[in-house]
């Protein structure tokens, strides 16, 4: 009884401990193992070396997916950050109806990416969407058919993703701006330093950790991007807008190529960890010293 009393906290954690151990780390190990075998339709457990990875890197479709990830990831992160920062700074100027504007900027984040994809697919649809509207308005040669052009379709994914996430970046930055010590800003204002200089020299540099957080969140979203592509382009035209996540899904569930699915999932995880681990490490360290 006394033993029980003393170990209640551990017993409470035990189910989660087992669950995390099996369903997170055990499963990662399983996927890693499969990525080293010749598994195809069914899992096989004899280790075969890095053959799946060589096949993966030689696959043109994976090449497209990784290229798309670079384009999509870079543009999505940079544009969302710029819009987010700009809106945050503008909203910080004692704007009337700030609450209403903030609510409007952030609501897309509450939507499912499938909903976002469905909406933008309709808006960007060349036959009846923006293109058609502009032509009706008299711009007979106006063309906006990125959605159906293989080399441009990935940019429509960027548009929809920025629409969804930039308001969230705004919220992060706005919280950061509000937490900057007002004493310093007032002192700078008294000294007659122009507002723009106050931002570039004092406020923005102190927000470095928030830039980092925003970057991590956006990079994480970009690498995991799946729903939006499925709803907006379904990876098409052809496989022009494939991303690693859609590639992995296609291999696992429609192509029946477990080895390729496992190898691509492992690459995705390594990319995420290359970004997240240093961040988590730096976040956890000071806590331990507390």
């Amino acid at each position, binding site marked *: 009884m006394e033993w029980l*009393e003393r170990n*209640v*906290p*551990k017993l*409470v*954690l035990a189910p*989660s401990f087992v*669950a*995390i151990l099996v369903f997170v780390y*055990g*499963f990662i190990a399983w*996927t890693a193992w499969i990525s080293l075998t010749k598994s195809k339709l069914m899992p096989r457990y004899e280790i075969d070396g890095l053959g799946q990875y060589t096949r993966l890197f030689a696959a043109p479709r994976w090449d497209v997916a990784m290229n798309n990830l670079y384009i999509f990831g870079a543009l999505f992160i940079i544009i969302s950050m710029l*819009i987010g920062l700009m809106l945050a700074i*503008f909203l910080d100027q004692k*704007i009337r109806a700030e609450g209403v*504007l903030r*609510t*409007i*900027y*952030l*609501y*897309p984040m*509450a*939507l*499912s*990416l*499938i*909903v976002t994809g*469905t*909406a*933008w697919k*309709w*808006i960007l649809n060349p036959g*009846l*969407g*923006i293109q*058609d*509207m502009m032509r*009706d*308005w008299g711009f007979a040669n106006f063309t906006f058919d990125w959605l159906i052009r293989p080399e441009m379709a990935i940019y429509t994914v960027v548009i929809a993703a920025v*629409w969804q996430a930039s308001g969230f970046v705004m*919220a992060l930055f706005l*919280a950061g701006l509000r937490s900057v010590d007002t004493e310093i800003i007032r002192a700078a204002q008294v000294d007659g330093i122009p507002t723009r200089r106050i931002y570039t020299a004092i406020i923005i540099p102190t927000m470095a950790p928030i830039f980092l957080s925003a970057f*991590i969140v956006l990079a994480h979203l970009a690498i995991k991007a799946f*729903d939006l592509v*499925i*709803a907006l382009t*379904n990876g098409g035209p052809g496989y022009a807008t494939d991303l*690693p*996540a859609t590639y*992995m*899904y296609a291999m*696992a569930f429609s192509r029946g190529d*477990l080895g390729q699915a496992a190898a691509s*999932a492992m690459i995705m*995880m390594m990319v*995420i960890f290359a970004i997240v681990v240093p961040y*988590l490490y730096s*976040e*956890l360290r000071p806590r331990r010293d507390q």
Partner: protein
Amino acid sequence: MTSNTTLLRWGLYGILILFALFYLLPLFVMLTTSLKSLEEIRTGSLLALPRAITFQPWLEAWSTACAGTQCEGLRPFFWNSVLMAVPAVMISTVVGALNGYVFAQWRFPGANLFFAAILFGCFIPFQVVLMPMARMLGLMGLAGTIPGLIFVHVIYGIGFTTLFFRNYYVTIPQELVRAAKVDGAGFFRIFWSIFLPISLPIITVSVIWQFTQIWNDFLFGVSFSGPGSQPVTVALNNIVNSTTGVKAYNVDMAAAIIAALPTLLVYVVAGKYFIRGLTAGSVKG
């Protein structure tokens, strides 16, 4: 000087309003399109208001639209999502609260390492667990069922809920627990009478975060559900991509709004807590 600053203010408001319109555009287009007849969609313009409002598309989206071969509208799938989200949100929040309570107030050797392992789990791309989970659900007899989806959402939701509660409870002085222990109160008694009563804000954050995540999830839904257990996001995607009959854009848009309504409603009612969850999930709390 004064006219210059006035001009600047106008410019500022101009840009802010322009962006507000940009964010509102898809919602506006979805709403107006869902209230137009197909004929009006074909002849009219994207941004035009409906000339003759019709609720037919909404009725079709709810009860007769075809998702794949099943033509019962979104209704059955909407209830699937409810049946999946409600238990999953409740279970993962309760587990997260107890875990967070232990991590914050009942530390033991190795607890930090375990917490780091949980935190780490929050960041994995789910692709890396997708295939073994599919096999595991099969082994457990839960493949293609709603309990299977609940199970998956609880497992991969625990990380975030634990993080929320741990970061909330860690601000409560440990002397309080120590004093209660001296008075003879046990683990659950202390939780029940000291921690639970002050937990309403963080429970709200956790419930809203989990609900939004689970309701909006597509990856687990499309990977692990069967014909009778698909959540609303999967059904919406199937309706939009359904090739039977004429492409009914108005029905698609009505279906999209129906699928979005619950989380949108939560956002409108409790936006403050939604934002807290978002930022706690990304920045250390």
